């Protein structure tokens, strides 16, 4: 049995010591700085800031977002009490590594598109030695963010949570007439700065595999992706996978959630075919009636998604897939790079090419000089008054393909 204990804060501030009192979280900045610089000598610059909901703040070149957590010692993964700060995150940002970092606006029109405009964010702007390769740069920022989130969670999550939610093992018997449903969960594993991590190890090896959803809710997956901001599954999204939570919520009532097929999104066609065949093979033993299929990224991963839909449909398993669209700024182009006739049940989480004009924000965190190079921005993106013209693509989590947002798209 896994229990997630959630605690909410109503404010976030810096102070002389770590504390979480009366739902006000105090962060001891120097202690955090010493910890982060001490554990990784590759960091040359570290700016620690706070971004609260509604503030006139724009965070640039965001790499990852992580939910702070704490787990009592001695409990195995997927069991026991995992405590989290429900509406607090650690946001890492800094000089661009791979074009596809993104932005978070804490107020104005951009705020309605990102889940992180509603959370209290501890922002780490991390600069590294110029001698590092892009891969080392990415690793340094990724590991620093995770370390900070764990450090923060441990420092303050020592009292009972506001709310507990328990997830019983799937083996408990349910009504045998309920439809057997699995979740097929692809991770972007293309290499070249497009990687995901399972138990801290690059997920390019060892997938596909069946995995208990409890392990995933207990933080098994972390992100190392420089894929487009809008449909990058950040570590926070993996920690709070909305499909897993929704399937658990309806488990035993409307459906029988039989588990998760964790798979990969490789680059080569032969690897894609091999991965799909393996998923189908594992699924064959689960006697499924339906699957939910998510995605990470766009373009190349469209092919993985379509192949899976086709193969599952052929084996008589009903599929619903979640995808975003790239239909052009005018919405008139074809939305996907690959299609298949079997894909007759798609949940669209938005056209990422939509252009937005975001109002100026008073405070900017992160490197402004890199802004126009972000995927979704263009050379004229930043206007003289500080307003920002950008595609939805550039906003972290805007078209999340785990279905975290309420955005959709339709033909008009």
């Amino acid at each position, binding site marked *: 049995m896994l229990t997630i204990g959630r605690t909410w804060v109503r404010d976030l501030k810096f102070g002389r010591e770590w504390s979480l009192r009366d739902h006000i979280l105090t962060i001891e900045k120097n202690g955090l700085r010493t910890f982060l610089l001490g554990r990784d000598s590759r960091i040359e610059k570290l700016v620690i800031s706070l971004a609260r909901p509604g503030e006139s703040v724009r965070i640039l070149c965001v790499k990852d977002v992580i939910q702070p957590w704490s787990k009592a010692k001695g409990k195995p993964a997927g069991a026991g009490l995992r405590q989290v700060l429900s509406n607090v995150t650690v946001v890492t940002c800094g000089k661009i590594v791979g074009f596809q970092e993104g932005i978070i606006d804490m107020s104005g029109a951009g705020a309605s598109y990102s889940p992180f405009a509603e959370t209290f964010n501890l922002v780490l702007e991390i600069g590294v030695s110029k001698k590092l390769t892009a891969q080392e740069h990415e690793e340094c920022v990724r590991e620093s963010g995770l370390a900070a989130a764990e450090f923060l969670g441990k420092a303050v999550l020592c009292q009972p949570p506001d709310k507990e939610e328990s997830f019983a093992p799937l083996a408990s018997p349910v009504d045998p007439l309920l439809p057997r449903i699995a979740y097929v969960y692809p991770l972007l594993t293309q290499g070249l700065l497009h990687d995901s991590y399972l138990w801290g190890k690059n997920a390019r090896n060892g997938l596909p595999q069946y995995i208990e959803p409890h392990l995933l809710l207990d933080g098994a997956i972390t992100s190392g992706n420089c894929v487009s901001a809008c449909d990058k599954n950040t570590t926070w999204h993996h920690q709070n996978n909305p499909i897993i939570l929704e399937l658990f919520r309806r488990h035993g009532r409307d459906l029988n959630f039989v588990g998760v097929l964790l798979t990969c999104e490789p680059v080569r066609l032969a690897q894609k075919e091999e991965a799909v065949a393996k998923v189908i093979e594992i699924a064959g033993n689960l006697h499924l009636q339906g699957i939910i299929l998510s995605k990470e990224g766009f373009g190349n991963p469209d092919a993985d998604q379509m192949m899976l839909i086709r193969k599952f449909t052929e084996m008589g398993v009903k599929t619903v897939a979640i995808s975003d669209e790239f239909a052009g700024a005018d919405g008139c*182009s074809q939305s996907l790079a690959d299609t298949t006739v079997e894909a007759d049940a798609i949940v669209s989480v938005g056209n990422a090419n939509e252009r937005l004009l975001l109002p100026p924000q008073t405070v900017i965190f992160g490197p402004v000089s890199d802004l126009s190079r972000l995927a979704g921005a263009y050379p004229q993106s930043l206007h003289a008054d500080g307003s920002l013209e950008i595609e939805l693509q550039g906003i972290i989590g805007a078209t999340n393909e785990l279905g975290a947002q309420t955005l959709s798209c339709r033909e008009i």
Partner: protein
Amino acid sequence: MTMKSPYRIIYCLNQFFGGLGGEDKADHPPCIFDGPKGPAILLQQRFPEVQVVKTVVFGDNYIAGKTDVAVAEVLALLRNSIDFSGADAPHLLLAGPAFLAGRYGIGCAAICKAVQEEFGLPAVTAMHPDNPAVAEYRKEVLIGVADKDVMGMEEGLDRMLALGKKLIHHLPLVPEEDNYILQGRRQNYFTQKSGAERAVEMLLRKIAGLPYRTEYVMPSFDRVPPAAPLSDLSRARIALVTSGGIVPRGNPDRIESASASRFGTYSIKDVAALSSEGYQSIHGGYDPTYANQDPNRVLPLDVIHELLTEKVFGSLHPYYYATVGNATSVARARDFGRDIGQRLVADGVQGVILTST
């Protein structure tokens, strides 16, 4: 808008509804009248805020047969009788309803399209969804849904005016409420439920055999028939084109790393191979480390020169064309392809090597 400044409308009808005659007048060229005629009179009766200032009447056959000529004549008639920038400029053009009448439908839709382009005037028609004009014009012209025949006249008139008012006042169209033919444009909107909730709900309905609606209908992809093979490679002029984002260092044309809005044309005259000092990748979506180390990995100029030395092909086009494929829409990529293709053909190129990332 008060009664003092009503909606000034130009109305378009075929020879039958415009009172010229039946099939015997179907070849009549367009003509223009002051005030309302036929259905336009009915519209004015139903809506006191409407003032039909002119009515254009055209023969069905005439406009369906030589649409370009007929539409140009309609535009000339309007230009000569209406001041589109004056204080009494019209607000809207309405045409039809054309019901299931194919020739009439083409006339209505073609005039709407031309008038909105030429004069910037909002224009609306209405017809049955099976009218052949729908497939051709629905993306460019706002078409209200009308019945099969004249029994649906009043409903069609009401619908056209309601849609016209939306255009005049720049109000958003709502697919479920506005009874018009969808225009193939994807638009974002916020729903009540998250994508995950919608997905689980859709799956349970699909499994139970209940009706559900996909949120994206798969498009049918273009298939491009390959060109015939080159008859003599040893004499052929070959060009290099890439969507892999290889540009001269510094990115002189500032091509975007995603959703490219342009392509670049770069001279490779006297360049035997691409150097990492001179060229770089600006393509998002992949780690450009290896492409930057050796840009020939994406745009193989070095190997091309080897083949040229071996006389495998005749000559190398002295320019290459480059853009970024990452998140670039299909429609835009098609435009780039057409443009580059025309230039290559004009320059006598017979074969192209296309590389991506």
